[in-house]
């Protein structure tokens, strides 16, 4: 493991030198040959390409296009380094596997800030270089050692305006009240957000959610289990609502506006009690493009234009307050940290989740299955 890491670093260094013209092609290939372990990556052209591009590991779908136009274009214009994508979804387990195997093929992961806490502690991530990346262009507490929040998404719920005509639900307390508001519900299957929602419904103040009282939250979740179904992906959450499977459903907050438009306003999003999630860019240890280029990329993604681009393209709220200030009055209700929303939303604590994901997710699965 250690020597693999060393070989990889040697070859990556050489790749930089090769690209910069400090080393000729033959010596570079000879070095790759000597490094041995790097042979497959040389064959795949990776080590050679390493010095010449940044690979962003995201979730596919629209995000490839959006990240490309909002961050990729200005980044390439500024540095000359092209941006490529791996759209297979950087789940924690996949990042860990990639780093452990010594064959790192991604430079920047579109992950969660709690991933930075969990994987940073186990040595799987490069630390963020705050000489290049700005701590001021994110929310307080969201610039951590191994990750910085670039955008915010979150959890909110939507309800069927026809099912609750006269007295629509306005809070998580209403969401969990099946007597007053009958009908099917949907919650996120992997605990995140669902636990916070349950606690708020049970009367916990939005800024006193952490550390999460698991027993209390799960009791609340179990109480409405018979009228709840659980989703595992954003598209599933979307389908449950537009197909009329639920009368109230939790969704990714940044997708709520699309659903409102798609259903001609039949389903409406409630921002009261929405839980803002810090989406973070994190860099796997030993990334092929080099830490420096990855940091530069993250810095570009903090710029006002990039942030506004992501907001209009993906609905994800900027973390840079300067960008938030430029959001129009019409769009502001859908920006989770707009001035009006800040008073009613809860902010996710990445440290708690980074340290307790395993216990929370498994307890949640046990409670709902």
């Amino acid at each position: 493991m250690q020597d693999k890491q060393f070989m990889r670093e040697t070859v990556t260094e050489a790749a930089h030198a090769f690209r910069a013209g400090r080393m000729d092609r033959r010596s570079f290939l000879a070095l790759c040959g000597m490094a041995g372990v790097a042979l497959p990556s040389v064959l795949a052209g990776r080590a050679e390409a390493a010095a010449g591009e940044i690979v962003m590991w995201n979730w596919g779908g629209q995000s490839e296009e959006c990240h490309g136009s909002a961050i990729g274009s200005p980044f390439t214009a500024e540095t000359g380094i092209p941006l490529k994508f791996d759209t297979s979804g950087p789940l924690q387990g996949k990042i860990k596997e990639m780093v452990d195997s010594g064959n790192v093929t991604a430079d920047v992961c579109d992950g969660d800030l709690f991933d930075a806490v969990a994987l940073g502690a186990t040595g799987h991530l490069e630390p963020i270089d705050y000489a290049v990346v700005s701590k001021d262009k994110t929310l307080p507490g969201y610039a951590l050692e191994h990750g910085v929040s670039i955008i915010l998404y979150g959890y909110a719920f939507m309800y069927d305006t026809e099912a609750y005509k006269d007295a629509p639900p306005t809070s998580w307390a209403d969401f969990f009240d099946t007597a007053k508001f009958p009908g099917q519900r949907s919650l996120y299957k992997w605990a995140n957000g669902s636990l916070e929602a349950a606690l708020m419904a049970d009367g916990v103040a939005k800024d006193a959610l952490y550390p999460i009282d698991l027993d209390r939250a799960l009791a609340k979740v179990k109480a409405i289990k018979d009228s709840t179904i659980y989703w595992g992906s954003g598209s599933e959450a979307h389908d449950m609502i537009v197909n009329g499977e639920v009368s109230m459903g939790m969704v990714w907050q940044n997708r709520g506006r699309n659903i409102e438009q798609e259903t001609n306003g039949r389903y409406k999003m409630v921002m009261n009690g929405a839980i803002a999630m810090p989406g973070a860019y994190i860099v796997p240890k030993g990334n092929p493009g080099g830490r420096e280029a990855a940091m530069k990329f993250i810095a570009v993604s903090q710029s006002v234009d990039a942030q506004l681009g992501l907001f209009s393209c993906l609905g994800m709220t900027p973390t840079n307050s300067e960008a938030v200030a430029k959001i129009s009055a019409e769009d502001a209700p859908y920006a989770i940290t707009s001035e009006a929303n800040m008073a009613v939303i809860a902010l996710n604590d990445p440290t708690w989740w980074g340290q307790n994901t395993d216990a929370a997710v498994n307890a949640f699965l046990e409670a709902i299955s």
Partner: protein
Amino acid sequence: MTRTARFNPGWYLVAPLLVLVAVMFAGPLANILWLSFTDPEPGLTNYAALIEKDSLRRLVWTTVHICLITTALSVILGYSIAYAMANVAEVARQRMMLFILISFWISVLVRTFSWMMLLGRKGLVNNGLIELGLISEPIPFVRNELGVLIGMVHYMIPYAVLPILVAMLGIDGRVLQASRNLGASPAQTFWRVYLPLTKPGIIAGALLVFILSLGFYVTPAIMGGGKVLMIAEYISVQVLITLKWGTAAMLAMLMLGSVLGLLYVLSRFMKLSEALGGGRT
């Protein structure tokens, strides 16, 4: 001397494949076995959890219970389909076979979503029944255990039909005539002659269905609405989200062990090649 003479040079042709299998399959498998005993700490903790933790016991039980029901239903339905196919004219049989194969080839994801459209709360079936005034509230066909069973049985039926059909086609019709001739009623002939003769097909079909059901992931995840948690999905969560690789490896080993165990049990009753190849030739 004789040994060298008997060595079949054909092995040279097979050797690359064997090496490939050893490296690409046995290697990672050994790695998983190793993980199951060493992550997070060396010892038997992961396996002990299987006995100590209610949640894991329940997980295993849910999986076995769903697989058993799926197997029983698939074999019963598959048996009647195979029976029909074995007793129609050749042309009709080929047509039926085509339908079986078509459903066999459709991806599990497509089928799952089709079922959701048909049986969902606002699906074709529920809407139809409501329009007809037969029901007032939609019937919860999916997003529960029933949904998982519908999806899985539908997927598994071809796997039950094929081996059973082969066994049925191998039966000499004169045996049945002899049975009737000797005074047995049609029911007696079925229960005492026909059914025992198709037993190898039934066992092979049931085993195949059970083994494949154990690893089901997509159907329970979507049609269960999150409430039916089976081992395959749990393993994926432990690998990707909670990073409990030791637990995941232990469960993977448990599944592999059960499958090998089942195959061993089967081998005690019949030749494996016969069971999995579907009857004698």
